[in-house]
């Protein structure tokens, strides 16, 4: 656990560049609000944990042997178990919450917080219950009496008397340090709380020696004789117990025993750990019966022990003052702990340190409310000296001894007394020394007591070094921006700038020229000031940044990006109150083309907002419908193609065509009629193909179509020998649905040449051809 304070140390390191000059503030208002927050009220007492956890813990106490559980599984549970469980829960809660109640009450008392919640009734009830109970352990009595020591409950002496006998009984049977601690602690509390019960220890020497037997040679203690590991926490407990024995001993305890105790104490202090910032603490490596103890609780335990011992002995313990102060700084350096227990340990230990009876050991804390002092605002350096809990110390004065420039060893010796302001309780340095300009300094203070007697009552730790930042408004003058001709250094363009203020210069330059920006910085006392941050930034339109600290020779590293660059100037320092970041205008750069091997601009991070936005919508662009001639035009052409037909009809009428030669005899006329009906059927089929849905037609009329076609084809051939007959069947489609929707028979040509019948089928793979076919025909005709 040596790393416990690494965080604290780190915070301190960052807080002040020099470890030596760390500032610790006494307990403040924020501790009070934290206390109220952390010790929140739960069911009438101060509890941190939930009821269920108590009951589990309690049940585990009752059945420590876990092997039992499996055998117990099969047993049934009668209903009355609930009552027993509740009793167990309430008992457990009482024990746990009494300890927490005490921690809360004690913290509140030290911090001076008036109890916000009236818990007296409920807590006193549980105190009375615990004290009357015969089954309570010495720990329970101890906790109950501790709570009672603050609440001062109205308890009858009967209860106290019973408690005394029980505590004495357990003291006699005690063999571990914890048993001694609770029993003796309980008796001491009993003695304080009731004069009626006469508490004294007859065999104080024996008890003293048996506790002492658990001690180790290095000043630490073991929790019991079986446990070889010793701890600081146990040492604190032992010291408290021993102090209790001393105060309870009726014949005064042997003085030699007290002397050995004193030696143990000093040995204990030899084992104290130290940090660079001057804090001391007791580390805890031992993880024992009390669980993992943090350095806060271990240190607090030791502090409580020392205070208890100091309170009961008249001897001077010769405690090392710097270590006491270091311990106080340690507790203050923790800041505001986040857990209730740590806060209790911190506050309780600090109150012990403040009230330690050995007068030479009360630590005083020198703190500065403000370490950033503005010379422009004429801030005054104020120093507060108080005890750890924030109460003012007796008459004293503070002297400023030395001032170091931060980071160097050079010191200017001042030795100036700070003026005490009685209203604010602060020691004030009204004017800063003449040679102090803006910057970081380490001020060294010393506390001087007006009355030399008081010097013995307090530990001040000698000189206190504090890092102080002196800030001020820096004057900026002679600001100008110049374009220089590279060859001759002659000035080409020169623009004055107002800094800080609005500027909007427009410059242009090429790669052979130089840009010079210059300005003077002077501190309030007229010295030149060198800021920590002086950046000139040129930002290309494409958001590629270039940053320059050196104002001369800035022609390179532009990645050969010509164009407009915005100029931005940043000047800042931690001691400069008017640090600024300003756009100055722009410069138009004309740079040569990039050679092939030139570095490319680095990739710029993606803007998250544009990456996640909705994408632009996409609508499909549909194919334009085919261009068709006007309907009227088609109809006109339809009329035109019908003219020959009507002309033919008219010609027939003109020629007086007739059918008088139609055979009259039955058989020939029947065959002639059948022949012509066959032709009509084929023609009607054509018409049907066109008018009706083709697929249906093809499928349903396929056989019929075949017969008709055969009749049509072979009939005429048989009868009209030597004549050519052309059958042109359009859109023959019966195969389409059975084979593929995309194979399309366009034409079936059947013609006869002499005795040979030729069947020619042509087709295409695209269904769309058909519409084109019609149009194409039309074009040919036109």
């Amino acid at each position, binding site marked *: 656990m040596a790393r416990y304070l690494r965080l604290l140390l780190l915070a301190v390191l960052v807080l002040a560049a020099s470890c030596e000059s760390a500032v610790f503030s006494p307990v403040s208002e924020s501790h009070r609000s934290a206390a109220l927050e952390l010790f929140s009220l739960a069911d009438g007492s101060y509890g941190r944990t939930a009821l269920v956890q108590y009951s589990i813990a309690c049940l585990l106490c009752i059945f420590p042997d876990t092997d*039992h*559980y499996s055998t117990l599984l099969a*047993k049934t*549970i009668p209903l009355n178990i609930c009552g027993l469980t509740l009793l167990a829960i309430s008992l457990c809660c009482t024990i746990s919450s009494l300890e927490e109640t005490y921690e809360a009450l004690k913290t509140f008392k030290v911090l001076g917080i008036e109890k916000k919640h009236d818990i007296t009734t409920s807590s006193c009830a549980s105190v009375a219950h615990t004290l009357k109970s015969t089954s309570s352990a010495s720990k329970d009595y101890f906790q109950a009496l501790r709570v009672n020591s603050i609440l001062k409950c109205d308890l009858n002496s009967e209860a106290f008397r019973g408690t005394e006998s029980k505590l004495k009984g357990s003291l006699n049977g005690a063999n571990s340090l914890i048993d001694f601690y609770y029993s003796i602690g309980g008796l001491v509390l009993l003695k304080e709380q009731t004069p009626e019960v006469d508490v004294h220890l007859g065999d104080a020497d024996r008890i003293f020696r048996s506790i002492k037997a658990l001690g180790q040679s290095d000043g630490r203690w073991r929790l019991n004789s079986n446990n070889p590991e010793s701890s600081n926490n146990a040492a604190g407990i032992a010291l408290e117990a021993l102090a209790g024995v001393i105060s309870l001993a009726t014949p005064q305890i042997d003085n030699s025993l007290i002397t050995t105790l004193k030696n143990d104490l000093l040995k204990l202090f030899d084992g104290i750990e130290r940090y660079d910032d001057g804090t001391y603490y007791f580390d805890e490596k031992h993880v024992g019966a009390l669980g993992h103890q943090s350095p806060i609780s271990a240190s607090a335990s030791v502090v409580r022990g020392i205070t208890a011992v100091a309170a009961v002995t008249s001897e001077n313990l010769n405690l090392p003052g710097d270590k006491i102060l270091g311990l106080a700084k340690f507790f203050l350096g923790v800041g505001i702990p*986040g857990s209730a227990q740590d806060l209790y340990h911190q506050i309780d230990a600090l109150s012990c340190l403040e009230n330690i009876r050995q007068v030479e050991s009360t630590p005083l804390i020198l703190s500065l*409310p403000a370490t950033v002092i503005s010379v422009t605002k004429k801030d005054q350096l104020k120093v507060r000296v108080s005890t750890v809990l924030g109460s003012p110390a007796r008459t004293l004065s503070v002297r400023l001894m030395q001032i170091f420039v931060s980071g160097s060893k050079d010191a200017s010796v001042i030795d100036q007394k700070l003026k005490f302001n009685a209203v604010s309780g602060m020691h004030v340095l009204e004017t800063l020394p003449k040679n102090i300009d803006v910057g970081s300094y380490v001020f060294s203070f010393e506390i001087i007591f007006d009355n030399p007697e008081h010097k013995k009552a307090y530990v001040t730790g000698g000189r206190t070094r504090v890092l102080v930042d002196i800030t001020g408004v820096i004057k900026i003058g002679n600001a100008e921006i110049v374009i220089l001709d590279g060859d001759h250094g002659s000035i080409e363009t020169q623009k004055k700038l107002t800094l800080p203020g609005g500027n909007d210069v427009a410059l242009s330059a090429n790669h052979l020229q130089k840009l010079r920006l210059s300005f003077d910085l002077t501190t309030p006392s007229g010295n030149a000031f060198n800021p920590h941050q002086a950046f000139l930034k040129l930002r290309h339109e494409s958001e590629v940044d270039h940053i320059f*600290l050196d104002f001369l020779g800035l022609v390179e590293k532009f990645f050969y990006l010509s164009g407009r660059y915005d100029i931005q100037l940043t000047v800042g320092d931690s001691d400069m109150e008017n640090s600024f970041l300003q756009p100055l205008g722009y410069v138009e750069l004309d740079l040569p083309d990039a050679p092939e091997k030139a570095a490319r601009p680095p990739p710029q991070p993606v803007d998250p907002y544009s990456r996640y936005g909705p994408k632009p919508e*996409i609508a499909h662009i549909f194919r334009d419908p085919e261009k068709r001639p006007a309907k009227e035009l*088609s109809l006109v052409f339809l009329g035109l193609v019908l003219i020959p037909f009507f002309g033919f009809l008219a010609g027939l009428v003109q020629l007086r065509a007739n059918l008088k030669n139609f055979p009259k005899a039955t058989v020939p006329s029947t065959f002639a009629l059948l022949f012509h009906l066959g032709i009509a059927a084929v023609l009607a089929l054509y018409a049907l193909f066109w008018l009706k849905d083709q697929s249906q037609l093809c499928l349903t009329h396929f056989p019929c179509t075949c017969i008709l076609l055969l009749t049509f084809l072979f009939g005429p051939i048989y009868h009209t020998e030597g004549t050519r007959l052309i059958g042109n069947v359009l859109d023959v489609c019966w195969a389409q649905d059975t084979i593929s*929707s995309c194979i399309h028979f366009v034409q079936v040509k059947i013609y006869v040449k002499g005795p040979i019948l030729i069947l020619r089928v042509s087709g295409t793979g695209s269904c769309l051809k058909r519409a084109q076919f019609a149009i194409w025909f039309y074009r040919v005709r036109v």
Partner: protein
Amino acid sequence: MAAPKFAFLLLNLISILPLLVSSFSVDRPTDRRILVLLDDLSLKSSHSLFFSSLKSRGFDLDFKLADDPAIAVKRYGQYMYDGLILLSPSTERFGGSLDVEGVLDFVDSGHDLIVAADANASDLIRNIAAECGVDFDEDPSAVVVDHSSYAVSETEGDHTLIAADDFIQSDVILGNKKIEAPVLFKGIGHSLNPANSMVLKALSASPSSYSTNPSSKLSSQPPSLYGTAISLVSVVQARNAARIMISGSLDMFSNRLFRAGVQKSGSLNKYEKSGNEQFITELSKWIFHERGHLKAVNLRHNKVGESEEPSMYRINDDLEFSVEIFEWSGSSWVPHVSKDVQVQFYMMSPYVLKTLSTNGKGLYHTSFKVPDVYGVFQFKVEYQKLGYTSLSLSKQIPVRPFKHNEYERFITTAFPYYGASFSMGNYVDVSTKYMIELQMAGFFIFSGVYLYNK
């Protein structure tokens, strides 16, 4: 006899515990069990507000020292935690079997991570951050300094306590409530790897900030990190919805900065309390999936006027598309309301990309015409919104062309052809160059007249 009964009750209690601590699931995306690795157990106390805020939201925190040899995030191939918080900036090696690879595997399997560094950041922490696309300043002594937007303090004069208020503009990451007070930051800066598109700046530094060692003079070289390129806190959402938060400051989680008042330099606004608590709490809600988790259900499509989902569309069909999107609120799924959910009708590239309209109750719908291109298409919803888990849905659907009999049948333009065919016209078949006589009606009449004329 009472003893067995007590024990039985205890067993009951123990058996109920696992049920209370339900683990991560698809239906409840919020994390439950979190492993917290600390440099030092005192952080439990000094950062207790952060931890108690997590505990009060129902997380089960398991605190361990970072070098505890018993650290294990995985047992029998199963992860024991849903989230990992590394508040151990100076740890050089984790105890147990955990290492950089282990942490990255943890994230790769969809778990969440919070990493806090500070000026003592070890190579281990830097490597983890670098793997997440975050590069901390390589100079180990550098911290972020800002002379124009520092937190005014009477005791800290080196301007390393930054009052940052350049937050990421996202309600889902930082909550609906605007963070009024600036966030106090004290630590190291980092830059984002431009090659990583997943990492985002949650809290950026101001243009006047730079990363340097405040106690030494700047060299003539410009600092490696300066201006708004410095990110103070970054977040990553991986493709598997794992979320990572990387902060350059451990202090910003601490009770001290949670409680501290803040006044930004140059501003007259004084805030009683810094924005840290709100910022960290809201960000941790996002990191542990209490927010910003989306799910899409009921992806549907049909032809306009029908309700059944077809197995195939024909080109030029009008269709309706709908999907329901819900958002996890930490306790239940509520409708996600947004105006930028888009659907794509996709084959190799999107043919249609349309923004869906919503009814405000989670249903998003639109309708469009199927393009006149046939093939195998997909309905794709690729919804990526800042801070939300991404949705990627797709459903395949073929589109066929017209059947031969679905074309227009009586084309006026072709009437002259038909007229010719049925009457007496002729036409030339270009493919054969034969003059074909079409003489249906004429042929019929002529054949009669020719044969039987007297």
